[in-house]
């Protein structure tokens, strides 16, 4: 069977897009020195609000706008909690993820009068890029996708250019690397962190909309089913670099697409569904091992401190 054909690549692009949006947001936060672990909850919220507003207004694009706006507002919880009030970002994120899961389930019943799944006939979904039909290659790759798929790819490239080629991007890189140094040169670190957290919220809104109005036209309780966590893994794997984030997301998307193919060949669904997560796990462990081995060879003493970063005290902190 010819699996690496255009249709396969198209499937990979499609299933990567929501994860890519979330991961780009997470990477920008990481650049600002804030670990954004609330991607899962934000994606889920984005997916829900997109479907709800699309149903109410009869316009899928209104749903997309609503997803962007409301998810940005939702991400304000992290901006306010972890940046302004200096709470632990991980704890705030755990709260947000649980809140999103509970709230979307609750509102699904209250607002949309549905349990489990909301997919009424007439729920407007995002249109495919039909105008690309007949264009060689591009048509096959993107013709059956929504506009949000190529947009995700463009945003990955744009984020990379922004981080690496602009003055603000340089400052952002410095903020995450050494906040005290950035502050001493007049950069207001919390401002960068708040801005990237909100930006990540907007991106998760797009990702959620693609999930519920692009991939399918429906909202299902917990429909993200771990995509936000895969995005977190992609962020860590790529060390916050947007183009590597793109690579990592495509890898996970490929694993998922492969999973579907294997299902077609009679593999049990429970196993094939696990494929992207399995790949995530394998790649994370492998990349850690590589770092360890490199450090071990180079400097066993440094390797110990790398394995136990909590044991390393920065000289600034000791005076």
């Amino acid at each position, binding site marked *: 069977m010819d699996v690496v054909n255009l249709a396969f690549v198209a499937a990979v692009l499609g299933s990567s897009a929501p994860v890519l949006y979330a991961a780009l947001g997470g990477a920008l936060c990481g650049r600002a020195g804030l670990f954004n672990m609330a991607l899962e909850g934000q994606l889920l919220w984005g997916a829900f609000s997109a479907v709800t507003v699309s149903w109410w207004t009869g316009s899928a694009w209104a749903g997309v706008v609503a997803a962007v706006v409301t998810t940005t507002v939702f991400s304000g919880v992290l901006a306010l909690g972890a940046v302004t009030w200096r709470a632990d970002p991980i704890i705030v994120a755990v709260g947000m993820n649980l809140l999103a899961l509970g709230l979307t389930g609750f509102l699904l019943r209250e607002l949309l009068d549905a349990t489990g799944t909301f997919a009424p006939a007439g729920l407007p979904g995002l249109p495919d890029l039909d105008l690309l039909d007949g264009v060689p290659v591009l048509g096959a790759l993107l013709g059956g996708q929504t506009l949000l798929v190529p947009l995700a790819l463009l945003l990955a490239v744009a984020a990379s250019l922004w981080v690496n*080629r*602009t*003055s*603000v*991007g*340089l*400052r952002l*890189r*410095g903020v995450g*690397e*050494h906040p*005290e*140094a*950035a502050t*001493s*040169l*007049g*950069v207001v670190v919390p401002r960068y962190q708040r801005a990237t957290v909100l930006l990540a919220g907007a991106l998760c809104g797009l990702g959620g909309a693609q999930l519920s109005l692009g991939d399918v036209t429906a909202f299902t309780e917990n429909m993200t089913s771990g995509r936000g966590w895969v995005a977190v893994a992609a962020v860590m794997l790529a060390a916050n670099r947007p183009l590597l984030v793109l690579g990592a997301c495509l890898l996970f998307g490929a694993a998922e697409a492969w999973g579907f193919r294997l299902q077609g060949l009679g593999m049990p669904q429970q196993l094939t569904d696990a494929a992207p997560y399995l790949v995530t796990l394998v790649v994370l462990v492998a990349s850690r091992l590589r770092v360890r081995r490199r450090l071990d060879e*180079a*400097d*066993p*003493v*440094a390797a110990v*401190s790398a394995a136990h970063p909590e044991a*390393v*005290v*920065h*000289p*600034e*902190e*000791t*005076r």
Partner: protein
Amino acid sequence: MTDRLPDVADPAAGAPPAAELRGITKRFGPVVAVDGVDLVLERGTVHAVVGENGAGKSTLMSVLYGLHRPDAGTVLRAGREVRLRSPLDAIAAGLGMVHQHFRLFGSLSVAENVVYRAEPGRRGIFDRRAAEQRVAELSDRIGLDVDPTARVDTLPLGVRQRVEILKALHREAEVLILDEPTAVLTPGEVDSLIAVVRTLAAQGTTVALVTHKVQEVLAATDRVTVLRDGAVTARLTTARTTAGEIVEAMIGRGLQPAVNPRGTVSSDPVLEVRDLRMAAAPGAARVRDVSITVRAGQVIGVAGVSGNGQREVVEAVLGLRPVQSGSVRLHGRDLAGLGVRERRALGIAYVPEDRPGMGSAATLSVADNLALGHHRSPPLAGRGRLSPRAVRSQATELVRRLGVRTAGVSAPLGSLSGGNAQKVVLARELHHEAPLLVVEQPTQGVDVGAGEEIHRLLLDHRARGGAVLLVSYEISELRALADRVLVMLDGAVTADLDAADATEEVLGAAMASARSAPRPEEGA
């Protein structure tokens, strides 16, 4: 105004000084860190601000740089009073500061670090080429050799410091404050820093050089202001003063160097290192066939420019780093295969160079730091339980015996000055009378008075029959303490001298051909 010595000629008569501090007082709670200090920095001069640790040097400079708001007093810049609410105001007023701990972005390039938040470029696009050019120009101007494209975390500390200086110059600093710039440098790097400072002054930049090393004052500066306990104890002109005068103003008495009564050495070898070979660590030399014997009652000094294999040999003795071949024996017993804990249990004590990172835990209390490593056995612990009371009473005793100045044994170690923190580490390692003490750079970052006491402690240990392996980059320290001095060059022992023959000239020559290898990182 200030009671400047009348014989200090004003180089730019009529022109106001580049910067001036008048009657500055700064308190931290009950501590008066700086007490009514006047300081005049004449344009184009290098002005030493000296004093022991805790004298208030950093606090005074932080006031000048807008980091601390003074409780009383004013700051003048070029004759005009300025209000510095933050370092940003100071930068805008033409001041620049290089802190004791660098503030650099490790993963960014030299050029990116230098221009950060003052980037060349148009419409928000960062012009990397222009930034690199600017760095090249600036480093050319002051005779520095820095690759603008290098990643900062790959650079030795000496070069990172140059990046900090370039950062200030890029922002057009006319007054440059250097806080203890030489504490992290090797002797060769100190010399080139002094050259840079002199070049800057010749070009009209005013430099305030904070240090507690008298030789540097004499070599690099024009004027000297000495602080003790937050107040000025002397204002001197470098050309007309002596090291003795400066030291006396710093510590309030003359220096009584520890006498080194070279006594009888027993023939008993405590440590025997034979034909040690090790792979190269990053930035350091491959260790080649090193043999060292340390006998009871003997201090063996290891000299050399940092990065020539000294650290690696020490780590082999401690069991921290694998060896390729050769042996390490303690009292005749081969230590191969034993880990750090077993080796320490057999009687090796260790005071590492990297005190904040490796030798101590800054956030733990003084008492806990004194217990570390002995916390598994009586009297501090029994049947798997640590006794906080025993830990505290041991600490109280040691703090008293060694004269550690601390707010109490439960104060975090990080709140102590460098010298006192070092005494805590030394106290812990000496307390159990381990037959072998391995110590690296025992007085680095330690003021003169505490340094003297540390030397005395080490000599006392030797007098009680202890064997000491001492690694130091400071020739004067080796001469004061060691019975024999080995010189390491490029991973091999190239000279083995009796302390009496190990003069500055001989050691300097033996070390001189050393490549200036980057020094192991301490996490800038």
